[in-house]
């Protein structure tokens, strides 16, 4: 197991009280595993990614542990985490397109970044150029300002820069959502290629688009309202999901290659609960067609088949 997250709880401080955005999640990511993390906006998927790498601002660490390799990460200590960030674990942020310093040429920016990590950047220049070529960027890019690149090019440049030191864990947060379909496919396939080439050991790919995950991820973890709903191999999540939320979600997605004349898909009625004072028990209860008395208690996230975990009383 490369990454192990144990009962992690992270809240957001607001004037009205704590928003329980990430409420006790436990899961692991294997060596070489690409784990997709899916869910609606506000379900806590980005909070989970951010908590592992940089817990800042209004985020409040409550409890839980994150172990990468054999060492526990001090995620509650922002400064201490500086030793791990970029070296051991890295993130491609949601707005990678605006993640670069607009006043520096890209080559210089990377140099400064490496220097700040105590790495001699000259040693890495050939590797940087080689990796730029790999993703279809010419070496000239190093002498360009970010404004000279298109959105897709910036995205690829950030991907290369984030993984330059071969981190053991990469978190990719919604990196395909602002791209055109053809560019989206290229970027998604590059993620897999980065893993194949050993640039990163394992990966968490966060997105709301579950069909992208089916294409690139080995396993998919579905979150709902700050809690884990289901984790299983990608094929299982798409073809035989067990949690009612996953089932309804998958069946509500329109597809290419299906003829819909007269057929209607249905959405999931209702909205997720507010996380300021979330209800006791299963948080999907109010929208779930199968809910019964037992659902007033919180369902545990347990294994129901090898490699398949879910949190639903009906499935246990």
């Amino acid at each position: 197991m490369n990454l192990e997250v144990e009962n992690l709880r992270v809240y957001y401080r607001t004037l009205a009280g704590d928003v329980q955005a990430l409420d006790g999640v436990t899961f692991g990511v294997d060596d070489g595993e690409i784990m997709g993390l899916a869910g609606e906006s506000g379900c806590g998927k980005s909070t989970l990614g951010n908590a592992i790498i940089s817990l800042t601002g209004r985020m409040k660490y409550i409890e839980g542990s994150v172990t990468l390799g054999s060492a526990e990460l001090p995620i509650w200590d922002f400064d201490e985490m500086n030793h791990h960030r970029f070296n051991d674990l890295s993130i491609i942020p949601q707005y990678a397109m605006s993640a670069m310093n607009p006043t520096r040429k890209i080559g210089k920016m990377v140099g400064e970044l490496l220097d700040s990590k105590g790495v001699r950047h000259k040693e890495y220049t050939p590797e940087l150029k080689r990796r730029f070529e790999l993703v279809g960027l010419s070496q000239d890019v190093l002498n360009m300002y970010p404004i000279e690149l298109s959105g897709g090019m910036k995205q690829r440049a950030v991907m290369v820069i984030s993984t330059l030191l071969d981190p053991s864990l990469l978190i990719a947060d919604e990196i395909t959502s602002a791209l055109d379909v053809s560019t989206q496919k290229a970027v998604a396939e590059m993620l897999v290629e980065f893993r194949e080439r050993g640039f990163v050991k394992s990966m968490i790919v966060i997105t709301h688009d579950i069909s992208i995950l089916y294409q690139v991820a080995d396993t998919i973890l579905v979150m709902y309202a700050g809690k884990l709903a289901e984790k299983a191999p990608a094929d299982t999540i798409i073809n035989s999901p067990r949690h009612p939320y996953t089932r309804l979600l998958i069946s509500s997605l329109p597809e290419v290659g299906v003829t819909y004349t007269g057929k209607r898909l249905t959405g999931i009625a209702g909205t997720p609960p507010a996380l300021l004072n979330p209800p006791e028990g299963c948080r999907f209860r109010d929208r779930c067609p199968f809910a019964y008395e037992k659902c007033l208690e919180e369902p545990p996230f347990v294994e129901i088949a090898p490699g398949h975990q879910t949190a639903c009383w009906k499935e246990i």
Partner: protein
Amino acid sequence: MSGPQNDARDNGEAGLLKLDHVTKVYSTGTFGGGQLTAVRDVSFEVKPGEVMSVIGESGSGKSTIGKMILRLSPISNGTISFDGTDVSTLKRRALKEYRRDVQGVFQDPFSSYNPIFKADRVFAMVKSEFFPGTSGPEWRNKIGLALEAVTLDPTQVLHKYPHQLSGGQLQRLLIARALLLDIRFLVADEIISMLDASTRIDVLNLLADLKGRGLGIMFITHDLSLGNYISEKTVILRRGLIVEMGETQKVFGNPTHPYTKMLLASVPQLHHKWEEIAEGLKVPDSVVIDKEAAAKKTYETVSEILAPDADDSVIVETEPNHLVRFSPEEAREIEPAAVAGKTE
């Protein structure tokens, strides 16, 4: 390019909105010295009760077409007519009347509202602008009907601020606002893309209901699966040019233009992996990510690896209600007579 118009005549049903060789040129650069052709010679028509998907990647001109229809942006060349009237000639009262018939809803529901005011202020503005004479109770009744049409509960959405409502609710409120005007045509520009998966389908189904009421809808999107679900007809745009259009089932079931194939091969599907799809469409997987070609030049988007369509390319009807753009040589091979008739 007279295919769709012919069909209209065949069915004896007139088109509601008709684009005839529409071109849009933007001036670029500091002093407007540069020129950018965003939309090139686009012709199609939408009938009442029909959803037309306009699908394209960024920069394809899909939103520009929507803006020209809504009179938010002038047309450089060609005509857009609504119900037989040339839209660009409308002034003052006639233009206001046009806005009663044709309305738009846009991508980001959160920035369509003024955060300082309550969300239902958009209704009040419609009243003061278009229905000053309507009495209070009558107006409230009208709002009730419009909200019912978009399946919103008035108690949940009225007298609320935008931040208190979800994206899906805000988007449906904007559609309700358009319905207050008794519109006959709706331009829906990426209205689904900001919404969550579980609420998306409700807004799509709402559009299907409106279609049932005889509304013509232009559904602008980059998401092929949404277009496939909702629309009868599809237009695929690339750099301002129509590359393929016709009945949705034919365009998606028998994609012919290499660009359409590439798009279909790139869409992440739920039950088929990319390799399978590429094999089924008989496109080399490398069309989409051709690393060698990519390394030689710094391309802007992956789709640019595909050669652009030549200026003298022509649209040919390959089967009834399915039109595809070909180079003149290819077109001559396929159907010599059709090309002779269509190159004007």
